[in-house]
Every structure is written in structure tokens, then in C-alpha cells.
């Protein structure tokens, strides 16, 4: 009796310990260090607000956050659009479960290639003399290479969409699969056309999946630094990149302050999304 009462505590201990050691403690450290001081060589324990002050009063911070939010919104919208239709196609138009599995696997296989390699492989494709420009020129569609394809916001968004769409597809596919097919027949019986079924039944019922996918995409984009650096050719900034630069220059307290701000922002965004759904119920 008593053993069964303490059993859940024992069972939860490893998870708690790992999260405490590798999540809570590090974040606490970040918060602590964000109040430390530093010069070009070293960081010292202190309690100063300069890191926050510098961050929050600097127009760079603001424009960087704005830029990051811009990426977030665009990538979110595009992945949602693509992710929804792909999930919809798999869930409603593919009838055999085996075929669904196969096509789903087909979508996941590219994710087995290292992210970095996948990203840099866009460069020969999109470059000035890349595959795409050359094809378009051979076909006579353009007479000068399109410059915006690479080292631009377009390239950043493209690569992020490429990297993150699956995070949208999976949860939406999951919720769509759980929609009782009778509901769709009931809607059709009530005279709804395809579009009305979509807007009145499927989308409302897919909301939890959309929310979970959105959480993934939003957090991934907000924290990204490598894609932005590679694909913008170093020409654009993101919060992650700013932090990475600060870390590179050993400006840990400034990076930590930025990290805290980023964390707060991400938590706010996720909190807002979570108001719409209860994830635990959706599992």
C-alpha cells in the first residue's frame, strides 16, 4: 500500500532530476549571469541591469526582434498552409493505412540528412549560377539571374519552411486522423459543400493539431541562428544569431540577458497558443 503510494514519486524522480539539472539549473544560471558584468575579456559576478538596459534601449535589439518576428510570422503562415494541406491530403484522400504510412515516411526521410548539409545544399541550387537560375535561363524565362533567390529573406524563409514543415504536418495529421469520418458525412448530409465542410468542421476540429504544430514552428524559428546566418549570407540578423555572436565574443551576460528576453517572449507566445488548446487532452 505505502509502496504503491510512493511509487509514482520514485518513477518521476529520474525525469525530475534530469530536467532540474539540465533545464532548471541552466536557466537559473542564465538568469543569474544576465545580471553579471563583463568587459572584453571576462565576466564577473555582479548585480547590474546594464545588460538589460543595453539590450532594451538598443535599436539593434528592437530591429532584430522585429526581424525575428517577421520570420516567425511568415514561416508560421507558410508552414501552416503547406502543412495543413499535406496533412489533409494524407488523412482524407489517401484511403489505405499502408499508403498513408508510406507517404508519411516519404515525407520524413529527408529529415535523416543532417540539417546543416540540407541547408547548404540550397546554395548550389539557388545561387546566381545555380541550378534554378540556369534552368530558367535555358528555358528563356529570364535573361538575367534572379538575385533574390539566395542570400535574402526569401532564402531564409525557404530554408526554414523546408526544415520545419514536417513539425506542422505531423500534429495536424494526427488530429485529422482522429476526426470521426461520420462528422464529415453528417455535414455533407446537411448540404455542406467541400469548402463549407473544411471551414465549418475540419478546421475547427484540427485546431489542437494546428496549435501544437504552431508551437513547434514558432519556438524553432525564434531560436534559430544557423539558418539565418547561412541563408542570408550573413546579411540578416535574428535573436538567436545575435546571441550566438555575443556568446562568440564571450559577452555571456549580454547573451544571457537576451536569452531571458527571448525566453519570456517565447513563453508568452506559447502561452497564448495554449489558451486555445489543452495539449494534455489531445494526446
Amino acid at each position, binding site marked *: 500500500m505505502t509502496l504503491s503510494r510512493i511509487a509514482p514519486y520514485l518513477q518521476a524522480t529520474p525525469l525530475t532530476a534530469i530536467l532540474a539539472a539540465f533545464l532548471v539549473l541552466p536557466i537559473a544560471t542564465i538568469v543569474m549571469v544576465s545580471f553579471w558584468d563583463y568587459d572584453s575579456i*571576462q565576466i564577473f559576478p555582479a548585480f547590474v541591469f546594464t545588460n538589460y538596459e543595453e539590450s532594451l534601449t538598443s535599436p539593434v535589439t528592437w530591429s532584430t526582434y522585429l526581424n525575428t518576428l517577421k520570420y516567425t510570422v511568415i514561416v508560421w503562415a507558410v508552414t501552416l498552409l503547406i502543412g495543413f494541406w499535406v496533412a489533409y491530403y494524407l488523412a482524407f484522400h489517401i484511403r489505405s493505412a499502408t499508403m498513408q504510412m508510406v507517404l508519411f515516411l516519404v515525407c520524413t526521410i529527408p529529415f535523416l540528412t543532417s540539417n546543416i548539409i540540407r541547408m547548404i545544399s540550397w546554395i548550389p541550387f539557388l545561387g546566381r549560377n545555380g541550378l534554378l537560375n540556369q534552368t530558367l535561363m535555358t528555358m528563356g524565362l529570364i535573361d538575367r539571374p534572379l538575385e533574390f533567390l*539566395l*542570400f535574402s529573406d526569401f532564402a531564409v524563409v525557404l530554408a526554414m519552411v523546408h526544415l520545419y514543415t514536417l513539425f506542422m504536418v505531423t500534429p495536424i495529421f494526427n488530429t485529422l486522423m482522429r476526426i470521426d469520418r461520420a462528422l464529415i458525412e453528417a455535414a455533407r448530409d446537411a448540404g455542406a459543400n467541400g469548402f463549407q465542410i473544411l471551414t465549418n468542421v475540419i478546421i475547427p476540429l484540427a485546431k489542437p493539431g494546428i496549435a501544437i504544430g504552431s508551437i513547434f514552428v514558432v519556438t524553432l524559428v525564434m531560436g534559430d541562428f544557423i539558418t539565418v546566418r547561412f541563408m542570408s549570407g*550573413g546579411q540578416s*540578423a535574428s535573436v538567436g544569431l545575435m546571441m550566438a*555572436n555575443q556568446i562568440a565574443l564571450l559577452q555571456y551576460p549580454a547573451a544571457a540577458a537576451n536569452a531571458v528576453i527571448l525566453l519570456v517572449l517565447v513563453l508568452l507566445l506559447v502561452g497564448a497558443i495554449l489558451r486555445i488548446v489543452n495539449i494534455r487532452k489531445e494526446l
Partner: protein
Amino acid sequence: AQNPITLRQFGTGVSNLNAIAEKCKADLGITLQMTALDSDAVSQRVVTQANSFDIADIEYWICKKVFAAGTLQPMDVKKIKYYDQIVPIFTTGKLTPTSTIAQGTAPSTVGFVEGPESKTFAKAPTEWMTLIPTIYNADTLGIRPDLVGRPIKNWKDILDPAFKGKTSILNIPSIGIMDAAMICESAGIIKYGDKGNMTKAEIDVTIDFLIKTKKAGQFRAFWKTFDESVNLMASGEVVIQSMWSPAVAAVRSKGIPCVYQPLEEGYRAWGGGLGIAKHLKGAQLDAAYEYINWYLSGWVGAYLNRQGYYSAVLSTAEKNMSPDEWAFWMLGQPAKTDILSPEGKVMYTAGAVRDGGSFEQRMGAVACWNSVMDEDRYMVRRWNEFIAA
């Protein structure tokens, strides 16, 4: 086979070569475990993970930042066999007794500390050396002669509207700012008191100018790593950009014309060196010295020279190179036979001349070194602003 000790060395991919580790194992029996990182990670490792390495292969400008962290120990020059033969740039700072010390974080200014426990850099050579120089070079603009279509003479040529959207500079603040300074000065935007140690006002002028240029669309990209610069150039994304000499060689090795263009204002130089971790002692410390002495003893020097870099002790390197190689690489003379890379691939055919002339011409025309300024923190902030603009 003599020494069963393992040393963990890390540094950038430029000099952290497996060939060196293999040769070291063969010659000394010391096992070198090499880890190659990008320059950001290198400086972080040195500062934050003191016990994760035995030998750090770092750049001099980073040394200025990281040595104060106390994770490296100064080396006793008495134990360095070839100390006297090290190129004087690293000791006195002057290539020849008459040359001036270039602006920026010249290696000699951070090359020595005052004592075995000290973290203060000494003004003149002492017995305690921070880093043993490994490789160094003087950088300039690389160009695609087939695509620029005009002679390039000055750093400011990168601003030519004809190259709009086809230029690039380096996005490592401490290095990029020096490129920018060379450009600004050349274009007559500003005359610096000391490029290597700008005032806030000078930083502002420089960055504002960069931002303006960026917004006008002059740059195609900013590169951070060796390969990025190679790919930018090789794929024709840019036709003129600041570059490293082996990167130019790499482009050329793909059969693409690329020239490392000497400029009137001179070069921006850089150098790297080996530092010994604080925690090393006893047999390991001895092995580290043994390794460093071997490093300077010629084989490595020749190996590095053959890549277009320069090595610290020229005399020992010369003995490990053929006269023709020496003449080609160090004296700037036309090659009499085909010049091979260390891997044995033909890099230059007979008759070729290396860009930039002889060692003296090159290293004698250094206008500045990569540097860490007093206003570093401010500069980095403004640099980020430039990137974010």
C-alpha cells in the same frame, strides 16, 4: 614511438591539420588529438573549458582577449630551441630593424607577459611567451580577373558601383572592422588615428558608412568561414571580396581564375600560435615543449609554407623544401618546375608566379593586424547593428 603521451589540441581548421598529428606521432610518438572548430568556438573553449584541451591553437587577436582568463600558461623561451630564429615580427614586432610596427593587435604586443604567473602583456620581449607562432599571413582582396574587367589597385575598389551586389567582406567583427577600416581610409571617408584601436567616433563613422553601403546593395553576402569565401567566389556570387590566401588557392584549384590582389594601401595581417593549457605539468608539459620544438624544427614549417602561409622559423623550413619551392613560395620567383600541394597535387605549373611577391614584399607591407580594441564592446554592438540593418 618514444613518448606515449596524448595531447589534446584544438583550433580552427586552418592549421589544425591531421597530417601534422600523423607526422608528430611518427617523429615523437606523441599522440595529438585534433579538434577543428570555427574561430568563435575556439575562443569560447579557451576561456570556458580550461581542462578540455592541452594545446590551444589560437589567433593573436583572440589571445588578447583570452589570455587574461588565466587558462593558458606562458612558455619559458629558454626551453624553445629555435626561439632565436623566430621571425622577429613575433618578438620585436619589426620584420627588419627599420620597419614600423603595424597598427592593430600586432603579435609582438601580446606575445609576452611579464612573468611565469603574470597575465599582463609585456611591452618588450621577456622570457615568458604567450603563444608560439605557427602560421601567419597578410590578407588582401581576392578578385575574379575574368569578371571584374578592370585593374584593381586599392581597397576602395570594392565600392565600385560596377560590382554592386557582387562584393563581400568578412563577418567576424574584429577582422571585418579592419577590412572596413582599410576600405574607408582608402576611399577617403576618414583618416584614423590608430585603425587598430579606434575611438567611438571613428567606429561610428566606419559602421555608418558600412550600413549605408549595405543598404545601397553593394554586398552580396558576408562570409564567416573559409569555405564560404571559396564558394562565394567559385560560384560567381561575388567577384571581389576580402579573402584568405589558401582560399584563393582553393578557388584556383577548381580551375576558376582567381587572383590575390596586392593593393597600394598594404595588407591586413593575422597570425596564430600555440598556447599551453594552464593545467599541464610534469611529463605532459615536457611533451608539449617537445611538440612545440618539433613544430618549429622545419617539417611543419615547410608543410605550411607549401599551402601559401608563412611559418615562424624560416631557416628550418627552408631545409625541408626544395630550392625551387623555396624560391617560388618565399622569394616570389617564377616556378621552374610544377609546384605541388602537400598532398602532391599540382597547384601551379612551371612558370607561374605567386601573388603578392616575396615574403618581404608581403609581410613588409602590412598596414594593420586583426585586433581587439579598447572599445571592443562598443564596436561589436555597432557591428551587430550593421549586420541587422
